[in-house]
């Protein structure tokens, strides 16, 4: 079985972000690291490999991004991936969710994986969608927010918390599974693995190498446009009550809640 893990480099969650006033996009020039949710995906791949229920021939980490994105691949490899693929091309800059999913699917097409794993969301805003977009282009079944995954023959038995409780779904491979952070506790890479990461095979590809149609990616291929970025609607100043007569105070609170239909 061949597993491809989609990983992404994202701005560090703890660093204050700003919007670049010119491009109206998130200023990504600060610190970046591997999307924490993707570490869960790599760990899931490793657990399949080490679990013994199925033979995993190789785990390939795949990313799409500008210059520094290859660091995410080094991290993925230090965590256990056998090799990595780096899709980078100026034509891809400004790609939205749809374009990104399309581009990644073209790389994956060439790899013909049995299983595609990725983190269900990333810290920089794109949530729960890339997996489904990629799956659609690859014509594979897809599930997101998976928190438990076991191999049963040529199927994956997955659990996820859906609107009404926990659903258990059997998915036939090849499939695209987006995992939640509750699925596992990612390992820390050993120093040896970190230092060995640079030596592992890293293939760099451009749009031409995988047959990506230029018009469908990049900011030109984007199907949404940012009109404006505004501060959130100003909240009117709150009301402050000093509690002197608790009975009175409590009545004020209950009325306040009732007015806002919070006691329905």
């Amino acid at each position, binding site marked *: 079985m061949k597993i491809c893990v989609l990983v992404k480099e994202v701005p560090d969650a703890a660093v204050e972000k700003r919007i670049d006033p010119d491009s109206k996009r998130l200023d990504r020039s600060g610190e970046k690291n591997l999307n924490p949710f993707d570490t869960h995906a790599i760990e899931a791949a490793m657990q399949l490999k080490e679990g013994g229920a199925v033979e995993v021939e190789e785990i390939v980490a795949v990313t799409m991004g500008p210059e520094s994105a290859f660091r995410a691949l080094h991290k993925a490899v230090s965590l256990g991936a056998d090799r990595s693929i780096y899709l980078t091309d100026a034509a891809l800059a400004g790609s939205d969710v749809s374009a990104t999913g399309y581009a990644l699917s073209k790389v994956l097409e060439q790899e013909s994986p049995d299983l595609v794993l990725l983190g269900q969301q990333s810290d920089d805003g794109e949530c729960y969608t890339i997996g489904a977009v990629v799956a659609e282009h690859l014509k*594979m*079944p897809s599930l997101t927010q998976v928190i438990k995954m076991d191999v049963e023959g040529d199927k994956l038995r997955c659990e996820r918390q859906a609107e009404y409780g*926990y659903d*258990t779904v059997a998915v036939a491979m090849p499939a695209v599974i987006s995992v939640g952070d509750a699925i596992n506790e990612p390992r820390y890479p050993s120093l040896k693995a970190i230092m060995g990461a640079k030596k592992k095979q890293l293939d760099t590809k451009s749009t031409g190498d995988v047959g990506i149609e230029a018009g469908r990616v990049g900011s030109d291929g984007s*199907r949404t446009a940012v009109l404006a970025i505004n501060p959130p609607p100003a909240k009117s100043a*709150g009301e402050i009550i000093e509690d002197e007569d608790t009975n009175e105070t409590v009545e004020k609170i209950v009325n306040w809640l009732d007015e806002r239909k919070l006691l329905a």
Partner: protein
Amino acid sequence: MSGILTYALHYEGAFNKNSLGAVSEGAKLAKEIGGEAAVVVVGGDDLTDDLCASLGSYGATKVFRAKGPEGLAQPVVDAMAKVIQDEGISYALFGGGLLGFEIGAGLTARLNAGVTMEVTNVRAEGGKLVAERPILQDSAIVDVDYVGEPGIIIGRLNAFDVVESGGGAAQVVDVDLQLEDHSTKAEMIQRGEQRGADVNIEDAELLVAGGRGLGKAEGFELCEELAGALGGAVAATRAVVDAGWYPYAAQIGQTGKTVAPKLYLAAGISGAIQHKVGMQASENIVAINKDANAPIFEFCDLGIVGDLNAILPKLTEAIKARKG
């Protein structure tokens, strides 16, 4: 092209609140830009004519019903793609939720459409829709326009209000659904399994959160009673979780969960920014703290400077009484 198509998720004979909110919103927007306020439902025999037509009371004009597996996204993508193309619909709207995201995303790829996620508000401008979504931990709102049609709008969970606009029964139309091959590859083994008492605080509409001001672990009993009276859940700050007064699953803040309930009642919480970033998007913030200088009083909607030990029990009783 015009009109809005929403998706309504059902289970055991009822549509969920999130879906009804989307249907209501779809109806409202369809009135503004013209066209049908259509809904797609996918399922088995429990999707009776009456049940489907009842979506009319939320403003739906047409309900497209397809036979297919429940609780899975890809068959719905097939159904909605067909309806959008056959009927020439301009926008697909989802109320968030797991399936909303999966279906919306699949549809985006299928139809090469633009998509916006975590939308908190939609407005009509010149016959088109503009989606508003918060970014950077709700510190800014982005207005997003669509290039070409259709446009896919995926709302934040419970972002759209359920409005019974009192319309008559919606027209129910059966759709002959041909599933794509890959849409048949997932099989629901068990649906909706309830597991223990884990309350998912991220989905709770009403939260009572406790902080160090509670004084001791037992202080959480006051919070639990109040939450019970309100019909909500209990959350906690990092400090009290650290002290072992409440479990980590309930922790809100920079290193815990982020929530945006309709009501966030903070008892004994100072409101330091590490906590604020986890709850600042709450619709209504009520704070009870004996320290008038606590930062939480700068961003709450209703603040009470007082002793929570005196206030919380009385508040619980008063709410029970008001609810009757």
